[in-house]
């Protein structure tokens, strides 16, 4: 692929520049996402195998293709 073609494609891939001011909608969405992440982390903590170190150490599965 010619270098020029590749450069042109790279430009096409790059998104438009975002505005510099904080958009309240985006900030609100960001907070909601953080809340979602926190709730997810709590649920993961609830269901994660206890004694992770021992569990992972004991898990051996031979005989696979």
């Amino acid at each position: 692929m010619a270098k020029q073609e590749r450069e042109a494609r790279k430009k096409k891939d790059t998104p438009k520049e975002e505005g510099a001011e904080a958009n309240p909608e985006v900030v609100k969405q960001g907070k909601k996402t953080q809340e979602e992440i926190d709730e997810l982390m709590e649920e993961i903590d609830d269901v994660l195998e206890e004694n992770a170190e021992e569990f992972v150490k004991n898990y051996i599965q031979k005989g696979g293709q």
Partner: protein
Amino acid sequence: MTRILGTETEFGVAVKNSAMPDPVSNAIFIVNSHPAQEPVLWDYSNENPLLDARGYEIEGERERPGPEYNRLLNKPLNNGGRLYVDGAHPEYATPECSDARMLVQYEKAGEQIIAQALHQANLRLQPQEGFSIYKNNTDGKGNSYGYHENYWVSRHVPFDTLIAQMTPFLITRQIFAGAGKVGAENRTDPARYQISQRADFFETWVDLNTMMKRPIINTRDEPHCDARGRRFHVIVGDANMSEVSTYLKTGTTALVLDMIEAGVFVKGVEIDNPIQEIKQISRDLTLRQTVRLSSGARWRALDIQRAYLEAAQTHYSRETDPQTHEMLSRWQDVLEILADDPMRLSDALDWVIKKRFIESYMERKGCSWQDPRVAMLDLQYHDMDPDKGLYFVIQRRGQVKRLISDEEVHRAQSLPPESTRAYFRGHCLSQFAKQVHMVSWTSVVFRCDTGMKRVPLMDPLRGTRALVGPVLEQSSTVEALLGHIGAPVSTASG
């Protein structure tokens, strides 16, 4: 976009309580915990994994279990697929599907089938004991197990052509199909996190072996069909949880095979050292590094994938099939977004979903990639227990893109595809349960008053609903069915 395809998933099994017996017994216990159906054997007479596509047969033993053991190992399913014990693993093979979306539906159904077997198996154990089952590819200790894809390809394509055209595609496909992995294995360069579960385990380019010194291109020639076709057996892929990952992985592969069959070849993308590059690409989370091509040029994995995409877009420019256009459009979108910022796909691609929640967890706990809890997160993402599996937790929170409805997945547990021979096999099993003696991909063998009768299923596109649906509906007995169907029925030995 019709291509016959199907996948086989070997599951990993962990047991609490090391007094439990060996992995083979565990696998048999789990598979036999699946809600009971009439016992049906698997017909091994057409199995021959010793044939090499390069034109020879190697020495070895063929699997031929006696009837009692056969019954323990095999649970042919009403959806036309197979739940069975393969070596030391429970395994699920989808029925034959005719497009990528159907394949996703039947793989997801298989996860639920395994989850049911798991649930029942655990009910039969003591409280301090318990199985966990993983749809992944490694135990983190250098042992890998496979996820195999099978694509029907016309035999008019020379196998050398498949090797040349598929190698660069399969090595780079991981950028959207990778399931993500913490750490490195098999004496490869260290890594904190990688794109692919399987990449570390590939040591050769082309070979018949599937269990050690694994090859990027597997030459097994066990077609399970008539002489017009071959079953291209792909062992290099990861087992995925995300529907989008599975859909893209298999759908793009099917499109590339379409092009190869049509004589449309992508040129100039041969990779200089495929065995090394598959691991390098796996370790580059930015997707910005380049690989060395045979020509000496250096391209990113993204660029190689784009070459295949553009060839497909040109080839299909006058195509009217909406599924083809949907797949091309998704392929284009995913490459564009990956080129911009892979983390934008944290609701769609397994390796990105996994990276995002592991990094969030590490930040919250103040731990590093080497922490055992991080290794546990990597494993538990693939847990088949819907209450514990981290993919299912994330999916229930609406944080991953879905393609298939819950209702469609549920249906696919017990109803076969309508467009392939799986339809005939599945409906014989559900309609004539007590009289089916054994099945395989290429046969259904009935017990009749007059003896055993084998119906061959050599063409994956016959035995469809269109061709045999009415006959199945009208036949209340096996004898009536056999009287109506056109296929040559032979007397079988039991």
